């Protein structure tokens, strides 16, 4: 029993990582119907903006801040202007495929710079908490807290502010939104900038736990897609639910069912959800657009 509790709690901690990656993924989908197949790599990359600064002795907070700004510029603004805007008019699928190419591009780029795994310093180093007999590092708790805070902030922004209402209107029907005088383009840009900042924060929080390496985006990306779909693609809070569930299911599955098939269990869950509840566990049903 203690064992099961432990598996659940560590699973939640890992799941929070997936959730943090998945939030931006659902956000882009909601406001601009963009499927970012490179989302995992978006989280991999900012660590490599920050690491050289940290090695050069730049203070931690400043390195993270510059990393976030760079990420907003490159992975937010640049991604939107250079890739999404020109391709989006061709449809959802070409953009998804461009994301796959972007993923290769980013991974190979970082690999040519360094193929090593790097230690990334933690915000809160060497501190463990005991919760119901399980031991969780302070860093993992920080991930959970930040993920929750981000979702609450985003929910607030989307549901309670004018900008948020405008963003939602844009997401639901950009033509009508435009007619209503909403600066649609600016609204979409905001979500990309938010995603840019989110992935950089995720990168700084997650890299101490999984290390900084060119290939981490593969695992993170796959987990984030699964989390987003299981939780609900069109709800920011779905990403949290999906991520946490995924972390727990993964641990319990590999402990009690099969370690060889540990990766299969979330995939089966994904297939079942898509077949029987495509809107996700937390999502609203979306009208089928053809």
């Amino acid at each position, binding site marked *: 029993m203690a064992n099961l509790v432990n598996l659940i709690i560590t699973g939640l901690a890992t799941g929070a990582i997936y959730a943090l990656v998945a939030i931006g993924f659902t956000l882009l989908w909601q406001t601009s119907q963009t*499927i970012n197949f490179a989302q995992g790599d978006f989280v991999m990359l900012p660590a490599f903006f920050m690491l050289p600064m940290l090695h050069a002795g730049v203070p931690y907070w400043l390195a993270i801040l510059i990393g976030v700004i760079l990420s907003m510029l490159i992975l937010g603004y640049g991604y939107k202007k250079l*890739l999404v805007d*020109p*391709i989006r008019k*061709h*449809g*959802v*699928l*070409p*953009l*998804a*495929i*461009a994301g*796959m*190419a*972007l*993923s*290769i*591009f980013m991974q*190979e*780029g970082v*690999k*040519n710079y360094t193929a090593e795994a790097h230690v990334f310093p933690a915000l809160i180093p060497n501190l463990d908490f005991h919760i119901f007999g399980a031991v969780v590092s302070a860093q993992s708790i920080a991930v959970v807290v930040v993920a929750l805070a981000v979702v609450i902030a985003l929910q607030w922004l989307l549901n309670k502010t004018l900008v948020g209402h405008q963003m939602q209107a844009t997401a639901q029907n950009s033509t009508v939104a435009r007619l209503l005088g909403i600066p649609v383009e600016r609204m979409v840009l905001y979500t990309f900038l938010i995603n840019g900042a989110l992935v950089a924060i995720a990168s700084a929080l997650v890299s101490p736990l999984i290390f900084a390496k060119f290939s981490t985006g593969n695992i993170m990306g*796959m987990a984030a*897609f*699964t989390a987003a*779909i299981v939780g609900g693609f069109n709800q920011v809070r779905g990403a949290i639910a999906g991520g946490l569930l995924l972390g727990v299911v993964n641990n319990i599955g590999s402990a009690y069912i099969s370690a*060889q*098939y540990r*990766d*299969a269990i979330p*995939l*089966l869950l*994904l*297939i079942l959800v*898509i*077949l029987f509840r*495509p809107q996700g566990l937390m999502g609203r049903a979306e009208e*089928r657009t*053809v």
Partner: protein
Amino acid sequence: MKLSAFAIVASLVVALGLLVGPIFLSDYGRYILSMWIVMSIAAIGLNLTLGYAGQVSLAQGAFMGVGAYVSALMTIHGWPLPVAMLTSALVCLVLGWMLGYPALRVQHHYLAFVTLAFASLAFLIFRNEEWITGGVDGLANIPRPYFLWMATDGSLAFYYYCLGVLGLIALGYYGLVRSPWGRAFLALRENPVRAMSLGIDTRRYILVAFAIGSALGGVAGSLFAPLVQFVEPPAFAVDLSLKLLLMVIVGGSGFYFGPFLGALIAVLLPEWLRFTQGYYLMLYAFFVMLLLVISPSGILGIADKWITDRKTRVASAARAATASAFEETKQ
């Protein structure tokens, strides 16, 4: 869409080149061309599913894997390759039909993720079910086939074997896309609701598109096994499915020659970009993104647009000429 004289001549030249050219190539060149054939067949299958019927699939590499394992196991145990190939095709046909069911319920990115999950599961089965697949160590010593009484151990003989299979498939593929089925696929891609209202049984055609596309993946796999003479799980990981998808997109999805061209670029790419050392994959990825910005229907999409534009220009110039001639006669 009629084949112009130019297209016929070009096809004949290419066919002749494929028949005669490899005689002058090294073993390496023949191997690369054989690999191109294998990838083309798999990409043709995906082009039917994606390009013609509009159903995205990220599982084509998994079907290649199923085909490769089935035919490796059968030929190692003494079955002739054609039997193994048909069995592979049949197994993948059934699996593809089953994978088509989710496509009846969900579309676009959901379908992409279902098929991606399927491909990941297939990899895990290849790796974990050691009793049949040989597990992590894979299956070695896969024999090359006989054609009638001739062994195809040599690179040239096996190349012709592959080319023969490709020839048959290319003919069937040509027939299929021009058949009512092919037109139904297109209708499905362009506007499923309209297709349904026109009395097309969209459900059945979606399943058929998946089944045939997957079966061709199986055929490609059953040539891959004797070509490399070794199959192992990482060869059929999700990467392969992504690669095949990029081939179809780069070549031109929905164009008859798209998969041939896309596979050619992907197979020869490391060769062409050898001078860039470690940067060839980056350049390829960059090229794909650039292409998607310019033309989401691939290289052939650009060519097609160029030809159409030119035809329109010629036609409007002709119209203008007749119009002005008409004006002149009036005066």
